[in-house]
C-alpha cells in the first residue's frame, strides 16, 4: 500500500492517503524509517475490515479515524488537503533516529545480560548461551568465510558471518554445525512474519546429516536430536533478530505458530529411500554427495494418525487430506515404509510420479478454494488479469470441482522416519530451491 501511495505522490504529484485497518497502520512508522521513506498519511479503521458486511463498512466510514479521532471522512479530506508539516517536507537520510549497533555490548553481569537479551526479545525465551568473544571465535573456526561477509540482507539490515556465529552460539551450536547454519541464515529473511500463522520447514540432505548426527529416523520430527533441535532454533533466533520481530513491534501474526520454535528441522532418510526415489536435493539437480539445506514456507501439517490401509492406500489419503490445504504447494513427509508401499504395491516408481498423480487427482470445490483468504488475496488479481488457471477458477460455480495443484513440481515428497509405523504428514509447505551447504564450509 505504501509503495503504491508513494508512486502516485511522486510520479503524479497527487495527494494520497492510505486507508487501512488499525492492525496494519500501526506499523507505518517502521515502514517509513526502514522501507518507504515517504511519510504517507493514513487513516485507520477498526479491525477487521476484510470480509465484514456492508453495514459494518458503513459504520466504519461514518465513524471516527482511530489515529486522529476525527470523523473518518473529515480525516481523509484533511489528509488530502492540509498543508505539509516540517516533518513531511524532510529530504535525504535523516541524521536522527538511525540505529547503529555496537559490535560488543557494555560489560555486565551474566544475570543482567540474560535479562537484557530477553528484554530486547533476542531469544525465543528458552535459555541461551551468551555469545562471548571466545565462544563466537570458536564458532567462526567452523567456516573459512571471513567474519564480515554478508550472509543475508533485508532492506538495510544485514546478517554477517559473525552475526550468524552469535546466533549459533546463542542456540547452542557446535562449530561443525556452522556451515549449515550459514546456509540456513542466508534465508533468514523468510522467517514467517505475517498476519497469518506462517512458519518454515528446514530439510537437510547429503552426507552432512550423518556427520552432524542429525536424526532422520525414529522420531525425526520430535525433540530427540541435538543437531535437529539446534539448527532449527538458530533459524528462529536469526529470523527474529534479522526482522526485528518483537511482540507488538514488528511481529504481527494474530495466532503465531508453535512450529516457529524449531521450524520443522529434519533430515531426509536417504538411506531408506526405495530404489528410484531420489533424495530431495538430487531432485533439485544436486549430486548425492552435495550437502544441501532446503527451506520452505507454510502454515500447517496434518498427520495420518494411524497406519496405511490396503483398501484406501496412502496416496488416496494424501489426496483427501490435501483438499484441506490452500492449494498453492504441498510437502508430504512420509515414513520409509509408506514410500516402500507406494512404490511396490501401488506402482509409483519415483517421487515425481506421485506428485504428478496428486496434481491430477486433488480436487476441491471452487467455493472452498476461494473461501481461503490467502488464495483470494494472492490469486484474485491474477484471475482479473485473465491469467490461468485462476481466471477459470474464478468463473467456476462454488460447487464445481477444480484441481488447484496445477503444478506437480510444487508437491514435494520427503522420506523420513524410523519404520515403526506406516504414517505420514501432509503439509502445505512450499519448498524453495535448496542451498549448497558446502560453499559455506
Amino acid at each position: 500500500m505504501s509503495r503504491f501511495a508513494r508512486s502516485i505522490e511522486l510520479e503524479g504529484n497527487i495527494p494520497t492517503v492510505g486507508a487501512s485497518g488499525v492492525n496494519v497502520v500501526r506499523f507505518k512508522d517502521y515502514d517509513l524509517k526502514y522501507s518507504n521513506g515517504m511519510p504517507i498519511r493514513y487513516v485507520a479503521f477498526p479491525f477487521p475490515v476484510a470480509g465484514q458486511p456492508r453495514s459494518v463498512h458503513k459504520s466504519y466510514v461514518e465513524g471516527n479515524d482511530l489515529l486522529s479521532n476525527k470523523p473518518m471522512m473529515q480525516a481523509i479530506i484533511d489528509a488530502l488537503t492540509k498543508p505539509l508539516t516540517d516533518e513531511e517536507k524532510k529530504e535525504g537520510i535523516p541524521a536522527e533516529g538511525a540505529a547503529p549497533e555496537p559490535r560488543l555490548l557494555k560489560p555486565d553481569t551474566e544475570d543482567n545480560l540474560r535479562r537484557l537479551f530477553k528484554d530486547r526479545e533476542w531469544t525465543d525465551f528458552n535459555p541461551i548461551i551468551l555469545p562471548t568473544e571466545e565462544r563466537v571465535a570458536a564458532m567462526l573456526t567452523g567456516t573459512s568465510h571471513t567474519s564480515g561477509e554478508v550472509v543475508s540482507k533485508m532492506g538495510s539490515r544485514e546478517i554477517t558471518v559473525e552475526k550468524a556465529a552469535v546466533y549459533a552460539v546463542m542456540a547452542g551450536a557446535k562449530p561443525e554445525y556452522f556451515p549449515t547454519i550459514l546456509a540456513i541464515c542466508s534465508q533468514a529473511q523468510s522467517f514467517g512474519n505475517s498476519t497469518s500463522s506462517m512458519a518454515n520447514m528446514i530439510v537437510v540432505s547429503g552426507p552432512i546429516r550423518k556427520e552432524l548426527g542429525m536424526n532422520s529416523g525414529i522420531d525425526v520430527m520430535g525433540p530427540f536430536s541435538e543437531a535437529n533441535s539446534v539448527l532449527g532454533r538458530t533459524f528462529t533466533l536469526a529470523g527474529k533478530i534479522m526482522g526485528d520481530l518483537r511482540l507488538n513491534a514488528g511481529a504481527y501474526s494474530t495466532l503465531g505458530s508453535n512450529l516457529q520454535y524449531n521450524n520443522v528441522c529434519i533430515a531426509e532418510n536417504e538411506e531408506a529411500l526405495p530404489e528410484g526415489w531420489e533424495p530431495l536435493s538430487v531432485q533439485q539437480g544436486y549430486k548425492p554427495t552435495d550437502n544441501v539445506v532446503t527451506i520452505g514456507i507454510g502454515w500447517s501439517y496434518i498427520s495420518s494418525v494411524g497406519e496405511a490401509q490396503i483398501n484406501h492406500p496412502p496416496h488416496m489419503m494424501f489426496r483427501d487430506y490435501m483438499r484441506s490445504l490452500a492449494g498453492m504447494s504441498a510437502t508430504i513427509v512420509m515414513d520409509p515404509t509408506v514410500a516402500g508401499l507406494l512404490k511396490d504395491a501401488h506402482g509409483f516408481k519415483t517421487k515425481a510420479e506421485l506428485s504428478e498423480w496428486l496434481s491430477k487427482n486433488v480436487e476441491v470445490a471452487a467455493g472452498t478454494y476461494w473461501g481461503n483468504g490467502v488464495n483470494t488475496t494472492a490469486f484474485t488479481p491474477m484471475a482479473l488479469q485473465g491469467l490461468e488457471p485462476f481466471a477459470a477458477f474464478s468463473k467456476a460455480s462454488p460447487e464445481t470441482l477444480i484441481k488447484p495443484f496445477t503444478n506437480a513440481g510444487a508437491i514435494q515428497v520427503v522420506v523420513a522416519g524410523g519404520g515403526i509405523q506406516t504414517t505420514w504428514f501432509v503439509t502445505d509447505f512450499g519448498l524453495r530451491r535448496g542451498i549448497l551447504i558446502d560453499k559455506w564450509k
Partner: protein
Amino acid sequence: MKKKILFDSFLFVLVALISIGVTSCVTDPVDTVKNCDERLITVLNPAISSKMTERVPLTPRADTLEGKTIYLVDLQWGGPEAGYSVFEEMEDWFSRNMPSVNVEIRRSSGGWMGDDPALRKEISSKKAGGVVIGIGG
C-alpha cells in the same frame, strides 16, 4: 608428625580449591559466574544495525477537493469484495456531502502486494485531486 601431615594436606587442598576458583573465573568467566556473581562479562551484540531510508517529502496539498476527481483504489486485500463496500460507502458520502467531487472507484490489478502501472498512469493523466488507497486489515 601425623598432625603436621594432615594440616599440610588441608592447606594444600584449600590452596588448590582457591586456585581453581580464581583460575576458572579468569579463563572461563561465564561458566563460573555463580562463583563470582558480580563479575562483568563482555558479549557480542546480536542486534543488527538499521540504516534509515532516504526521506522523500509528500507532495504539496491543495486547499480543497471541491470540483476535483478523487480516486478510491481497492488493493483487494482479502479478495475483490472483502473491502470494496468501504469505498462504495465513501462514494456515497461524497455524493451526499460534497457533490462537486467526482469519485472514481478502481480495483488495482496488482492486488495487495503488486502494482498497477496502467491505473497509476490513468490517475496521473486525469490530474486527480487525491487518492484514497486501501484497505488492509
